[in-house]
C-alpha cells in the first residue's frame, strides 16, 4: 500500500503472466485445459477478493454475479444468436447491473446480516434460474453450440473451442484483471477501500462517503465476477444452474482464504492449489465436499492469512 517498490510489484506480476504464457507451450493436454479453467475461475476469485479482502465485506452470494455473467453471455448466444464480443459484454452488463441493485440493498446491513442477505439474494437468483428452466435449461443446463463460439476480429477468425485459443483468451482476461486490480488497490481509491475495512467510522470522519465507496466496490467486484462467468460460458460452452448454487458462493471465499485475502496473487494461488488438491485426491476419493469442508475449517482455525498473506508477513513485506 505504501508508495515503495511499484516496479518490483509490477515485475513480479508480469513475470507470473509470462510464466503462464510459457506454460501454454509445455503443458500436456490435460493440464493445459485445467490451467485455462483455473485462470478463468481465478478471475472470479479476484473479483471476490476485491470486496472481501480489501473492503472487508464478506459476501456469501457471489455466485449470483458469476452466474449473471454466465447466463447473460451464454443465453444471448444460445437464444439470440449474438456474436461472442456482444455476448461477453452482455454478460458483464448483467453482472454490473445486478451488483448495483444488490449493493444498494445489501449495504444497508453489515456484518452477519450482510452475509445472510447476500446468501438469500443469491438463493433467489439460483431459484429463478431453475424456475425459468424453459430458457435457462434448469439444472440440466445448456450446451452453447460450438459453431457460435467463434470470434471474428477483422479478418482473422478465432475458434474459442480450440485449446490454444481458449488458453490464450483465458490468459488475456486473467492478465487484464490482475493488472487492473493491482492498479486499483495501489491507487488512492484502494487506500480508501482498505481504510473502510480497517475503521469505517474514522473514514467517514475524514470526509469520505463510505457508502458510495462500498457500493462502487460491490459493483466492480460483481462486474469482474460476471466477466469470469461470461468467459466461462463462451470458452467452455456450458451454462447451468449449479454455477448459481450456494457452493459457488463458498468456493471463491475458500480460494481467497487459502491464497491469502487482500493479496493480488492470492486468488490465483488459492484457486490453483484447491483445484489440484481436488484433482489429485479425486484419484482415490470422491469426497470432494469433505476436502472443501476440512480446508475451510483448518484455514479459519490455523491459517487465516492464507498462503500469500503469510509469505508477505514473514518474508516479502512489499508484496501487494
Amino acid at each position, binding site marked *: 500500500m505504501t508508495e515503495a517498490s511499484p516496479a518490483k510489484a509490477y515485475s513480479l506480476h508480469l513475470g507470473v503472466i509470462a510464466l503462464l504464457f510459457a506454460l501454454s507451450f509445455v503443458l500436456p493436454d490435460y493440464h493445459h485445459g485445467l490451467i485455462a479453467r483455473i485462470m478463468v475461475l481465478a478471475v472470479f476469485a479476484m473479483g471476490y477478493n476485491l470486496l472481501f479482502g480489501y473492503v472487508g465485506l464478506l459476501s456469501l452470494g457471489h455466485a449470483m454475479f458469476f452466474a449473471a455473467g454466465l447466463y447473460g453471455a451464454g443465453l444471448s448466444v444460445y437464444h439470440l444468436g449474438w456474436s461472442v464480443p456482444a455476448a461477453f459484454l452482455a454478460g458483464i452488463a448483467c453482472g454490473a447491473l445486478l451488483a448495483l441493485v444488490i449493493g444498494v440493498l445489501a449495504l444497508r446491513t453489515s456484518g452477519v446480516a450482510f452475509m445472510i442477505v447476500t446468501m438469500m439474494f443469491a438463493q433467489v437468483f439460483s431459484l429463478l434460474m431453475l424456475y425459468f428452466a424453459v430458457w435457462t435449461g434448469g439444472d440440466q443446463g445448456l450446451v452453447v453450440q460450438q459453431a457460435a463460439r467463434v470470434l471474428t476480429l477483422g479478418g482473422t477468425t478465432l475458434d474459442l473451442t480450440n485449446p490454444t485459443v481458449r488458453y490464450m483468451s483465458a490468459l488475456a482476461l486473467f492478465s487484464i484483471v490482475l493488472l487492473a486490480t493491482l492498479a486499483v488497490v495501489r491507487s488512492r481509491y484502494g487506500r480508501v477501500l482498505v481504510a473502510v475495512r480497517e475503521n469505517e467510522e474514522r473514514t467517514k470522519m475524514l470526509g469520505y462517503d463510505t457508502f458510495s465507496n462500498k457500493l462502487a466496490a460491490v459493483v466492480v467486484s460483481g462486474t469482474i465476477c460476471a466477466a469470469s462467468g461470461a468467459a466461462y460460458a463462451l470458452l467452455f460452452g456450458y451454462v447451468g444452474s449449479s454455477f448459481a448454487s450456494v457452493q459457488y458462493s463458498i468456493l471463491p471465499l475458500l480460494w481467497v482464504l487459502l491464497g491469502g485475502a487482500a493479496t493480488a496473487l492470492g486468488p490465483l494461488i488459492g484457486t490453483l492449489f484447491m483445484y489440484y488438491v481436488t484433482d489429485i485426491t479425486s484419484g482415490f476419493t470422491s469426497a470432494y465436499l469433505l476436502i472443501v469442508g476440512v480446508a475451510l*475449517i483448518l484455514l479459519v482455525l490455523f491459517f487465516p492469512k492464507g498462503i500469500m498473506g503469510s509469505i508477505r508477513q514473514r518474508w516479502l513485506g512489499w508484496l501487494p
Partner: protein
Amino acid sequence: MHFGPHLLLAALEGLVTSAVLALTALGLSLVFGVMRVVNVAHGEFFMLGAVLAWALSTAISGHPALGFVAALVIAPLIVGAVALVAERMVLRRLNYNPEATIVATIGMLYIIQQLALTFYGPEARPVEPPFSYRILLPWFGYSGYKLSVVAASALLLVATWLVLTRTKVGLLMRATQYDSETAQAFGIPVDRVYGGVFALGAMLAAIAAVLIVPISQAHYLMGQDPLLLSFIVVIIGGLGSLRGTLVAAVLIGLSDGIISMFFSPTLAKIIATLVVAMVLVFRPQGLFGTASR
C-alpha cells in the same frame, strides 16, 4: 374435493410443517441468541438426526414403534455429542468470532453432508411410522401420526420454554445471552453454557428430524430446506427472540403449506426468500422483535 376441505388439508399439512419448523428454528435461534453464532450447519444436524433415525429403526427389529422410540432418544443424543465435539474443537477456538464461525460452520456443513453421502448413500429411505392410525374427517382421512407430531412438538416447545424460564440452567443461559462478560464476572461458566447451548440447538433439530422422517423419508440433502426455512423464521421472528420464533414458525409453516398447495414450490420459495431478505434489509430487528442491543 371442494375448496374448503382443500384449504383445511393444506392448513393441516402446514401445521405439521410449522411444528417441525418451530423446533428446528428454536435450536438455531437459541444458538444465535446466546452465542451470537450463525450456525450454517444447523440443517445438517437435522439431516443427521433423520439418517440416524433410519439406521436405528432398521437395526432394531420388532414392532416399528420400538425402533422409532429408540431413534427418538438415541439419535438426538448422538447428534448433540457431535455438535458438542464440533463446538469444543472449532467454534471455541475461534473465540466465537461471528464471521469466522460462519465460515467454519459452512465447513461443517460440507463435512457432514459428504460423510452422510459416503456412508448412507444417495438414496431417500423411508422410516416406518410407530403407528398408522387414520383419523376420518367428513371429507378425507388424515394421518393420526401427523397430528401426533404436532402434539409432540408442542409438548417439547413448552418443555424447552419451561427449562429456559423456570430452571437454573435456563437462568444461566439467559444471563449469558444478556451479557456474557458480566455473566462470566459473576462466576457463570459461560464456556460450558456455550457448549451446552450448541449441543441443545443441534438436538432440537435432530428431534424435529426424527419426528418428520416417517412422513418425508431420510436423504443426505434433506438439511437444506429446513436450514433456509429456519433462517426465515428466525429472521422474521427477530434474531434471538423465542416468542417471535414460535409465531413466525406457525406463520411460515402455514403459509408454506398453503402456498405450495396452490403454487409451484419453487415460486413459493423464491417469494419467501425474497421477502425475508427484504425484511433483513429494511427491518433488521425482525417483524416481532424489538431493536437489538
